[in-house]
């Protein structure tokens, strides 16, 4: 099973403050550890929402809004895709990440696979 593990922006990250060398090292250490556990399929971090945009559709009308966006805590800062046996195992890796990197919140969501979209037979 695949899980997407996401962590969220802080106001500092939104303001473009580079992560401290310690934090960068911690993230590097986590990625290395996850790779050595054989569970990491892919992972990326994303930049401040200043460098992004949002597409909003209201009643068919499309509006493109340039960043930055308020509420940093609602914005994804990065994700990893893990291949594991269970939600519990994914949560364990998320916990490792949170403790090591010092995140306030990490979400763990299952990736939908082809079989999920088939009508039950």
């Amino acid at each position, binding site marked *: 099973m695949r899980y997407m593990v996401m962590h969220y922006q802080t106001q500092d990250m939104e303001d473009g403050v580079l992560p401290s060398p310690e934090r960068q090292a911690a993230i590097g250490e986590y990625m290395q550890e996850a790779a*050595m556990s*054989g569970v990491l*399929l892919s992972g990326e971090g994303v930049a401040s929402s200043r460098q992004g945009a949002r597409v909003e559709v209201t009643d068919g009308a499309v509006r493109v809004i340039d960043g930055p966006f308020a509420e940093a805590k609602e914005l994804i800062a990065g994700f990893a895709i893990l291949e594991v046996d269970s939600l*519990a195992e994914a949560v364990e890796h998320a916990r490792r990440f949170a*403790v090591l990197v010092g995140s306030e919140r990490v979400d763990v969501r299952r990736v939908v696979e*082809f*079989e999920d979209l088939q009508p039950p037979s």
Partner: protein
Amino acid sequence: MTDPGSALDARMATLWRVESPRMTARLARLVGDLDTAEELAQDTFLAAVEKWRRDGEPDNPAAWLHTTARHLAVDRIRRRDTGRAKYRLAAAGQRHALEHDLGEIVDGDLAEDLLGLIFMACHPILAPDARSALVLKLVCGLQTEDVARAFLAPPATIAQRVVRAKRTLAAAKVRFELPPHGERPARLDAVREVVYLVFNEGYTATSGDRWFREDLCAEALRLGRMLAALTPSDTETLGLLALIELQASRLRARTGPDGEPVLLADQDRSRWDRLLIGRGLALLDRIDALGGTTGPYALQAAIAACHARATTAAVTDWERIAALYDGLARISPSPVVELNRGVAAAQAFGPAAGLEIVLPLFDVPGMDRYHLLPAVAGDLLCRAGDHEQARERFLQAAAMTGNAAERATMQRRASACAAGSCAVARH
């Protein structure tokens, strides 16, 4: 889940899966042998169950587990060394030296710990099935029951296999060690062999519950990814991982709704796993960037990549595949490679080119039991217009296969040949 005991059991099983490989690795490095390492890891988890049932689980259970494991190991080593001191003159400062060594190991490199554990579990003195059982148990953190289910064996058999393997290692005085660099290529060969064996055990499963068998593919991928992370510049290891990532990308597409096999050419390519294909292709790029390799895994991965890159079966680059099979036949020749080389040559240059390679295989000892040979020969003869000989080969294949669905296909193709046609309706 209302029983706190069973909730804790499930919790410990998860923690065992995630934490036990690195714990066992570090313990093995500290104490030297797998048996003691495994025993100490189990003691650590038992201590955790006892303490957490009383006091609740700490915020960072992993840290608690690893600290406790270290304490238990240091304790064990001290007792062992004290025992030895009775018949050995203890040099002044020896205690200090021990503390110093331990400190170094305790803070040592996780990568080296894991690699050492993998080398030990895949030691060439062990039989391949002993290696895979040991690796799945210690390096993947599987329970004996899981290993047994995957190998369709009773748990007692697997447990015994693991015990015997550890005993063999102990008898040969194999201690935890990182082989010197000169020996590593040969030792890595033995590890790769196990990973590919486990993968194929799941991939080519013809019996058993498909779900559990495919779990073996998942474990092999986990091991392969682990190994590639531990030896990031070993091109043949990257080649092995590329190969199994690419093969696994087709897992879901290779069976139809009723579980019947679907041939590569007929697969719904939209069901191929793009993430795994991307990983496989990226690994091949990395091998190139590292200067390339002509090892058998990387070559097979390059062949798998030709299929992965083709958006439809019709645009497959068969000339490249044929050339890669020529290379593979040179470095690891086998009748099965020859057969595949024949198929590729036929696709690239026509049935006659294929038959030139395939027909001599009928004289190779042992191939008279391999039903795919007459099946392939029948197909190529048919396409070359020799329906009479093709029919005979299809009937031969039908008589040889143990699989009912395959037998039916071969008989249908033989009848089509009798009517002077190659076409056979796909059911």
